[in-house]
């Protein structure tokens, strides 16, 4: 983490929270502060969402501020665009990132371009939350990491937190932002940090300092990366679940890697990337999503454009394979610490 003291004292007492509780707290704080904030999606109302993120919000704020929607993602995003045009700040949940495709036209052609095409006459101050990533035996329709489909779209902000403190602060920033924000939640991190060792007991967030979350209002800025693990030998650029996997690989290989948690994928914190890579001279890019035309390709190009003369080794990419996310072979697909560690070694040996 960058300076954790950057969170102001007004944010209140830090208490143990899972990422789910931290996200709920962000929604709660935002709804309490601004009655223009409304929350909706499939099963999010009375039931509180399949991952429980919105639990209790309907009871607290009433059904017109937190409600269930039909199973229809173009409708969920489409009404969010209309509500944003009215002046509300909608927070829409797509139950799984894998389900956003029917809403793609409303995201790409509408939400992302509303400000541009109307010269600011209409804007889309909306947040679209969606759980992403694998590691829960979700198969190909509950495991995808579609971030590159969003970072490719001009006008969208794409965010992915790796821990409860960031999740709450980033979600509040997203809600308060006047641009449309795609807020990807790595579902494998909902209940605890996950280093990729699926065969070991789950560590709960209550046992980790990043699971101590201020109860009140605070923001984590968009477009700012965090140095998750300082190091001198090689820079790992990553986000979401892979932050933890990469840090684990550094420990296990004994390579002094600097792990940068992007937090905001686009627009991103280029300065943080450039400063680190120019210092270490080596770079490994890690994401869970498929490889070809993945966000790692963009990161690789940026590092090449801005750090070429500082590089001492080819840039390495560690990603999911270019296959649909398989069910039974999930852990062969998932780029765990062994694959990241091997890439770190290659980067050091080159």
């Amino acid at each position: 983490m960058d300076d954790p003291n950057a969170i102001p004292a007004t944010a209140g007492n830090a208490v143990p929270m899972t990422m789910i509780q931290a996200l709920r707290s962000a929604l709660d704080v935002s709804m309490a502060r601004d009655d223009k904030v409304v929350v909706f999606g499939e099963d999010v109302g009375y039931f509180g969402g399949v991952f429980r993120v919105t639990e209790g919000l309907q009871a607290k704020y009433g059904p017109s501020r937190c409600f269930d929607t039909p199973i229809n993602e173009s409708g969920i995003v489409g009404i969010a665009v209309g509500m944003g045009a009215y002046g509300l700040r909608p927070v829409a949940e797509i139950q799984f990132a894998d389900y956003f495709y029917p809403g793609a036209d409303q995201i790409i052609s509408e939400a992302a371009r509303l400000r541009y095409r109307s010269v600011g006459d209409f804007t889309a101050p909306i947040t679209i939350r969606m759980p992403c990533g694998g590691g829960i035996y979700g198969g190909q329709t509950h495991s995808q990491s579609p971030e590159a489909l969003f970072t490719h779209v001009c006008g969208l902000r794409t965010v992915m937190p790796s821990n409860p403190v960031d999740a709450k602060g980033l979600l509040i920033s997203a809600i308060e932002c006047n641009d449309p924000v795609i807020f990807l939640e790595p579902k494998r991190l909902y209940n605890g940090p996950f280093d990729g060792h699926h065969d070991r007991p789950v560590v709960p967030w209550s046992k980790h300092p990043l699971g101590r979350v201020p109860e009140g209002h605070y923001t984590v800025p968009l477009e700012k990366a965090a140095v998750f693990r300082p190091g001198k030998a090689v820079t790992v650029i990553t986000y979401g679940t892979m932050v933890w996997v990469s840090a684990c690989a550094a420990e296990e290989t004994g390579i002094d890697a600097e792990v940068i948690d992007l937090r905001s994928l686009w627009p991103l914190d280029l300065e943080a990337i450039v400063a680190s890579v120019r210092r270490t001279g080596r770079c490994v890019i890690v994401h869970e999503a498929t490889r070809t035309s993945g966000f790692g390709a963009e990161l690789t190009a940026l590092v090449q454009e801005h750090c070429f003369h500082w590089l001492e080794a080819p840039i390495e990419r560690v990603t999911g394979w270019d296959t649909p996310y398989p069910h039974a072979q999930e852990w062969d697909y998932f780029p765990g610490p062994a694959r990241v560690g091997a890439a770190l070694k290659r980067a050091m040996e080159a």
Partner: protein
Amino acid sequence: MSRTSNALDLHVPAPHARPGDKPDFSGWSFPEPGETPKPELDASAAELRDFAYGLIRVLDFDGNAIGPWAPSIAPEALRRGLKYMLLTRAFDDRMYRAQRQGKTSFYMQSFGEEAISVAQALALNSDDMCFPSYRQQGVLIARDYPIFDMMCQIYSNARDPMRGRQLPVMYSSKKDGFFTVSGNLATQVPQAVGWAMASAIAGDTKIASGWIGDGSTAESDFHTALTFAHVYRAPVILNVVNNQWAISSFQAIAGGESTTFAARGVGCGIASLRVDGNDFLAVYAASRWAAERARGNLGPTLIEWVSYRAGAHSTSDDPSKYRPADDWQRFPLGDPIVRLKAHLIGLGEWSEAQHEQARQELEAEVAAAQKEAESHGTLLDGHIPSPATMFDDVFERMPWHLRLQRQQLGV
């Protein structure tokens, strides 16, 4: 492929006539003006079922207003409506020719269907939000949006409010209740429902009006909008302008052959009306009925406006390739301007001389606005907004990568 005697046969609908054929509307039957009753505002969708299959008409072809739907509307308001329709037609004619003269890339007329947008705009409150498709310029004109600004948008010139970013006719004016027009179809309809839901969430009194053509009702967003509008009883009017043609595809290709577009609402539990869209009084009355219903928390109304696209789909289209040239002249519901003019003359509130004078004055107004707009440039003469502005408004604040790209462009 070999076919057996019991082979299945794929049905592909075909229109009544193609180029060279004699137009034939003999299969079309409508209720007479005044024949359709006017239901109570709080009638249930089930009680209204038949209205989705009939046709609400007020004006006969002699200009008489007949029956329970005849609105009480002052002659002065009728004259305003007629002038807005004449202005829309004159504007369309000028801009169509401007495109043909190479002054812009593209234009879309609303020729023949002016009554629908103009009469509904006059039936709504000025702060009700319209989510138009690309052929509702009549709404902007009836809300007194300057035609000079519309022309500058069409020319993508230095005074274009959209700064050259949008195709011609893709206007936006929040203050006039006119949502930014999208080039892809049907997306605006769920947005209209969402805006209406927001108005209800906020405890406001404003309603929304969404617009779509017969062709794009086949898009899933239209059905999405019906579902959400019904579920949340959204205060919204959902307008289907059935002008019979989606570029070259006649309305049966969109699924209107054995049913109506209004009937789409019946299965969704939405009050659904089918109305003569070339009958200014029927459009006004049905719009008022739906608006009052929405304002009374009685939910959404779907209205199919039966009309005819008299002109081409756009300047990029050539209808002589797929339909008879004189189709529109034989369309049984006539010309909305001619019909309202006859009504006003019948009331003793208008005359042929006044009509001709108004037409000439409005054409002069359009010509003057065109001259002024062209003094600020056209797409042809290159007086377009600076390319430096094309990096603005992607985000609220410009991120580093767009600043960098602007530098790379050298502007």
